[in-house]
């Protein structure tokens, strides 16, 4: 499957990565190359094979439904590029 410029634009947006218009053609070519490499997987007979969804065959443990951590507002905000009055600040979202 080869990717065209419009698909590259869509993929970049899905990934939330800004790509200038001039960068879209080279990006499309690069992504097409990688996808072509993946096409090898079509040679494998996967009829009746279950997808591998857990690495080690073991049931995930459940923990008690209790609060184990918290009251760390200042720690959580300490690395924020813009924190005000105990909140993360972002550009206006709602018009």
């Amino acid at each position, binding site marked *: 499957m080869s990717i065209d410029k419009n698909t590259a634009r869509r993929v970049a947006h899905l990934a939330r990565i800004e790509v200038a218009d001039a960068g879209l053609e080279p990006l499309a070519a690069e992504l097409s190359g990688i996808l072509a490499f993946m096409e090898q997987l079509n040679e494998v007979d*996967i009829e009746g094979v279950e997808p591998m969804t857990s690495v080690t065959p073991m049931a995930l443990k459940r923990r008690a439904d209790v609060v184990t951590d918290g009251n760390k507002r200042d720690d959580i905000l300490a690395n924020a*590029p813009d924190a005000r009055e105990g909140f993360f600040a972002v550009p206006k979202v709602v018009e």
Partner: protein
Amino acid sequence: MAELNKLTIAAAREGLRKREFTAVELTEACSAAAAAAAPLNAWTVLTAESALAQAAKADAALAKGDAPAMTGIPLGIKDLFATKGVQTQAASNILAGFKPPYESTVTQNLWDNGAVMIGKLNMDEFAMGSSNETSAYGPVTSPWRREGSDTALTPGGSSGGSAAAVAADTCLAATGTDTGGSIRQPAAFVGITGVKPTYGRCSRWGVVAFASSLDQAGPMTKTVRDSAIMLGAMAGHDAKDSTSADLPVPDFEAALTGDIRGKKIGIPREYRLDGMPAEIDTLWEQGRAMLRDAGAEIVDISLPHTKFALPAYYVIAPAEASSNLARYDGVRYGHRAKIKAGEGITEMYERTRAEGFGREVQRRVMIGSYVLSAGFYDAYYLRAQKVRTLIRQDFEQAFAAGIDAILTPATPSAAFGLGEKANADPIEMYLNDVFTVTVNLAGLPGIAVPAGQSSENLPLGLQIIGRPWEEGDMMNVAYALERAVGYASKPDQWW
């Protein structure tokens, strides 16, 4: 007292207990060697002051007696591990200046065992790379050079800083992480030992996530024994990582008897690649002969889906990465791009990620977004997950047939020059992982051990793959190989 930094963990452990030197002296020697190794660009931060405080505590514990094995051992920590109050940015600009208010479980386990952190280590950005050239800090230069040349070589990746720091004797050992070969390939490139444990052996909590079903932390050390000691200190169940195994951590060091008589060592025929350099094939043959001489039985085996491991990996790893890296949006930590008047939060997200992520990371996040997107999920991601099942079954069948461990080359070549693959297709770089990536897909343990030298006098490594949870047995085979090889070469100090 000279050159304490050149000791192994085992030798330092003994010297500290015999009071031949103190943990403070050992730490000072490593911190000085690390500071003097600036041309390698292996260290991103040196924490000499807090290291001395940890070393003084270690000396006090040693004086009382009964201190854990890692007490007073100076380590380097890959930049992927969150270290409380110390810059942790996964070698990415998007995490510029990030200082975690918490400590990763693996590093906390090491400090609880008395180890000392002398600094953080360079790596490929978000552990995506095989040459350390994707790092926002710039590439690491290997301490090794080709015979009669001063061309700067890669230490491998992504744990290239860890590999270079240990090979250059600037710390006794280092932590690494391995998603497709990121411990074993750099270990092989610089002539040290690196272990990727069974998936779930070490907690992933506090390790910056790349591909969660593949990532594992492990030790990078000067000897197999050191890896056994250090892995014992890193491993263990952790309620904060639901995939960490609730299994006792065995005494790995006690497994190192060197006796491998009667062990069945599998040689997978699919690992003999077209165009593989003759010296890699020779190295592999020598490894087989050494294990046979040590009393093991060498058995030809087949792992028929091997050739599909790389394409499956390069679907699954980017898919998981695109999901894990969605959190870097310029809101909670790290870099935030400036927006112009009239622009909003979408532009802020998209520009932040364009400015903060390097090219390889962007490429993988986009591939991951594509293979997970509506209409392509079944064709790529689901298919790759099914192929992954087949790859794991290949190994399960070999082990069910009585194979104890598998011997393969660690890398398809010796270390290459920095920049040599700069204009190559991304796929060419991905081929570095061809012998290691199957192990991550199957969740198995693997170890790279130095096994010889290339024609240009660069280190070459062999890999031993073990049964799940049998790291001790696997390291014992590696130990037998290490003893047979007697690898003692060190890079000449040019830095």
